Every structure is written in C-alpha cells, then in structure tokens.
C-alpha cells in the first residue's frame, strides 16, 4: 500500500497519456471521417466507369459487402478515367499550363515582394508594425472581391486601358482581360502577402550588426546586400515561393473570372468536369493526379519548415 503511494509518479505518468487520449481520438476520428475517407472515395471514384446516371458512376464497391460480391465488383475496376486523362490533350495542356502560370506568377511575386519586404524592414521601428499591418490587411478582405476588382481594371474598356489611352502610351485598347496575363496578374495580386510575410520575417530578424560589420570591412551596400542579407533571407524566399506556387496550381476562382476560353488550369478543369460535364470519374482522376503533382512541393515545404524549426532560425 505504502509502496504504491510512493510510486505514484510513474503511475501518474502511465495514466496521463491515457487521460489525454480522448483529446486525440475525438479530432482524429473526425479527421478520419472527413479527410481520409473522402480521399479514398476520390481514388475509388477515379477508378470507376462513367455512366449517365445519378450518381454518374458505376460504384466499384459499396457497403455492405460480401466477399464473392467484392470479387465480382473488382472486375468493374477501370482505368478508363486515367486513360482518358492521358489520351485527351486537354488535360495534359491544363497540367502544363497550370505549372507554367503558377511558376511565372511565383517568380513575379518574388520580384515584387522582395524589394517591398526589404523596404518594409527599413521603416523606422516605431512605424514598422503599422506599415506591416497595412501590407497584410488587403489579405483579410474577401479573395473573391479582390479578384473581382481587377475585372474593372483589365477589361477592354477598363481603367487601365482608359489610363494608357489618355496618356497616349497606346492607340488601341490592350486585350488583357480573358488572357493568361490577366490570370497571372490576378494570382500575383492575390498571393502577394504569402510572399511578403516570410521574406519580411526572414530579413527583419537578421542581426543589423552583420551589415555594419560588412560596411566596416569595406563592403559597399550593394555587395553587403548580396553577400549578407540575401543569402540569410533565402529560407523566407523559398517558403514564400512554395506558399504561392502550391495554391496557385490548383486555383479555380482566378482563371474562371479573369481568364478566357483558352485559359487552361487544372483546378478549373476539375470544376468544369464535375459541375458542367458531370464526369465524376475524370474529375476524380484529375484530382488524384493534381495531388501527385503537388506532393513534391508540399514535401519540400514541410522539410523546410522542420529545418527552420529545428535550427531555431
């Protein structure tokens, strides 16, 4: 009895995790039902055949299920949807064009965000939180509204063309709206805060005495920037690039509202397949392939985050 009381600490240690487990299993169960299970369903439906019905696919297996039934149903497995993806140039074009537009947008974002973030860190410390908040605030307004605002600017009779015609820079209105350029502008505008934030953080936490040391050793501000500030800010740049590139690839709203009929992006294709063509297996197969495409950048991002966390940067 007394020995038991003495060893209360190990007993508590053994019990503590058990008590905490309900805190894990409730959300875990939720995630299994609302995240893992839906994914299996996407894979499952991507392997079924398209039919014109409700729901518009032949189920491969449904519960309740008997073993013989299961074997019969296995015969219904079909790679038809995947074959369709590879045979239809539309999908391949959509993939390539998504990668191209997202990659280009990421690059432009970087070129705008870096000088901007750098200048933000050079603002007087008293004013810095205010300006930083001002830079992030547009991000809090509705995504849809920010994309919508660009329609009025980029249209043939929009503000930009009015301005350029008035300035005499152009003689006929530019066709920007409903092109890939408009999609690019929309993505850059919408995702710019994702790029500004990590770069700003990476520059701001640098020790300013490093720059003073570089100057004392005779480095010009230009070479001090390229040899000190820039290399130290690279993790922020890479994090920002992935934070822009990953969601931009699957973007639906921006190509839908700013792009034209020739704009192909995979997120948009999935939506159209699903809602307009009612081809669920193709939409599901395209979703599976999009996910496969994103695994590398997502993995890279996770690696980067854990390196940053472990090095305490």
């Amino acid at each position, binding site marked *: 009895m007394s020995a038991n009381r003495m060893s209360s600490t190990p007993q508590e240690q053994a019990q503590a995790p058990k008590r905490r487990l309900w805190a894990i299993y409730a959300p875990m169960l939720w995630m299994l039902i609302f*995240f893992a299970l839906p994914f299996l369903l996407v894979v499952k439906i991507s392997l079924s055949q398209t039919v014109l019905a409700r729901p518009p696919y032949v189920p491969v297996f449904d519960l309740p299920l008997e073993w013989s039934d299961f074997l019969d149903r296995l015969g219904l497995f079909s790679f038809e949807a995947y074959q369709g993806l590879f045979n239809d140039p539309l999908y391949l074009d959509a993939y390539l064009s998504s990668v191209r537009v997202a990659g280009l947008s990421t690059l432009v974002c970087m070129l705008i965000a870096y*000088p901007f973030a750098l200048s933000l860190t*050079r*603002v007087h410390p008293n004013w810095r939180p205010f300006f930083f908040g001002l830079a992030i605030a547009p991000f809090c307004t509705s995504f849809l509204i920010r994309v919508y605002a660009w329609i009025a*600017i980029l249209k043939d009779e929009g503000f930009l063309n009015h301005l350029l015609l008035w300035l005499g820079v152009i003689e006929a209105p530019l066709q920007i709206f409903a092109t890939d350029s408009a999609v690019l502008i929309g993505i850059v*505008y919408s995702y710019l805060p994702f790029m500004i934030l990590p770069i700003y953080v990476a520059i701001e936490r640098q020790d300013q005495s490093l720059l003073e040391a570089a100057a004392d050793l005779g480095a010009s501000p230009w070479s001090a920037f390229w040899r000190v500030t820039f290399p130290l800010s690279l993790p922020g740049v890479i994090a920002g690039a992935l934070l822009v590139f990953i969601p931009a690839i699957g973007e639906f709203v921006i190509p839908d509202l700013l792009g034209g009929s020739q704009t192909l992006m995979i997120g948009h294709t999935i939506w159209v397949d699903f809602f307009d063509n009612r081809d669920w297996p193709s939409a599901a197969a395209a979703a599976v392939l999009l996910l496969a495409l994103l695994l590398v950048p997502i993995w890279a991002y996770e690696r980067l985050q854990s390196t940053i966390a472990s090095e305490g940067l």
Partner: protein
Amino acid sequence: MSAPARLSSRFAHRYAHRLVLLAGFGFLYVPIILLIIFSFNESRLVTVWAGFSTRWYGALFKNEQMLSSVWNSLVLALASASLATILGTLAAYGLARTPRFKGRMIFAAMIYAPLVMPEVISGLALLLLFVALDLDRGLPTMIMAHASIGMCFVTVVVQPRFMAMDRSLIEAAMDLGATPLSTFFSITLPLAFPAIQSGFLLAMMLSLDDLVIASFTSGPGSTTLPMRIYSQVRLGVTPEVNAISALLIGVIAFALLAGALLRRRTHAHAH
C-alpha cells in the same frame, strides 16, 4: 568611400525604399479604392463616372436573395468556426502533450495536409463523402466541411501555445489537489485562450471567404454570400456587386482597426 558620398548614398537609399513602398502599397490598394469609389457611381456602367449616388446600396437592402445569403454565411461561419475551435483545440492539446502515440505521424499529416490542399480537391472529396453517406446537402454538410478545414488552422495556431506553456503551473495545480479536468479548464485553457480566440477568428474568416468548398457541399437554399457574389460576377461587373464588396471591405477594415486599437490598449495596460 568618402563621408559625403556615403551620406548621399544613404539618402538615395532612403528615397529608393520610400519609392518601393509607395509603388507596393499603390499596387495593393488602388484596385480596392477604385472598387469602393465606383460603388457610389450613378451609372450602371462601372468604369465611367456619372455622378455620386447611393442607389446601389439602397438596391442591395431590397435584394432579398442577397440578404438571405448574408444570413446563411453568418450562420455557417459561426457554427463551423465553433466546431473547428473545439476540435482544433483538442487536437492541438493532444499533439502538444502527447509526444508519442499510435498514429501520431498520420494524425499530424492529416492536420497539415488540408492547409495546402487545393480547395477544388477538398471540396470534391467532401462532396463524394456526403453522396456516399447519402446525406442531403445543405447548411449542415457545409458546416461539417468548413469545420474540417477550419480545425486544421485552429490546431496550427493553438498548438505552439500549448507547447510553450509553463508546465510548473499545471503541476502546481495538480499538487494542490485539482483534478486533471479542473486543471485543464481553470489553468490550461485560460492560458491558451488568446491563441484559441485567434484560431476561432481565422476559421470564421476562412469560412466567410470560401467559395469553392461551399459550392461543392451546398444544396438548394443554402447559397452563401461568396456564392451569390460569384454568380452575379459571372454575369458581369455591376455596381450592386461593388456596393456589397465595399460594405464588406468596410466591415473588415473596421474589425481590423478595432482589433488593433484593443490590442494597443491591453498592451498599454500590461505595461
């Protein structure tokens, strides 16, 4: 470099930085400002100014479809963010306090994946779940969908708070005879409250803003504000959409400002 040269170069640098800031803020704010200005335009044409008018705001408050979609959005955001906060806080607590348990890796992966998942995929996957479960689509399915995505964001925001918490406070409470449950509610939870609050607001904002996942999981009569705006925008740019956008921006600007002032005041009190 001579002293005057260094001074003038520093001067040039300061101006270069100001120019960059001006250009950057211009890029960020000009589209929003144009949108707000033209919500007060008399004309139906949104790019030609024809005089000041508030008629589109008047039209907005008579548009019952718009008003009901605002109501749907608010119900959806509050319900899904509450659910997301409970689930996300539990998950954060579990992950922070239990370094090792079966399936931790899978659990952590499931929490982080939706943060970077394209919305089209999440929406499609959740819809297929609801079809398979034979659930009628409507507000309840949308609440479940938004709660599932929102809880991941809540977990990510709250978990560091639980990790950084001073263990000795909890041990002290236990030593003084508090049960684990009462310790959790009287010590752990209040200490994490600011982070939980931010998580709740983030989940609400995401829900209010979402078009794609809501569209996949919605049913008849559960149209949200972004869905209503989207269907109007597809028909073209109208001053009415400008008016609702300007109103939303106003609400958000007010909330941000109030939040900043409140934080400054509590900050001043703390010192």
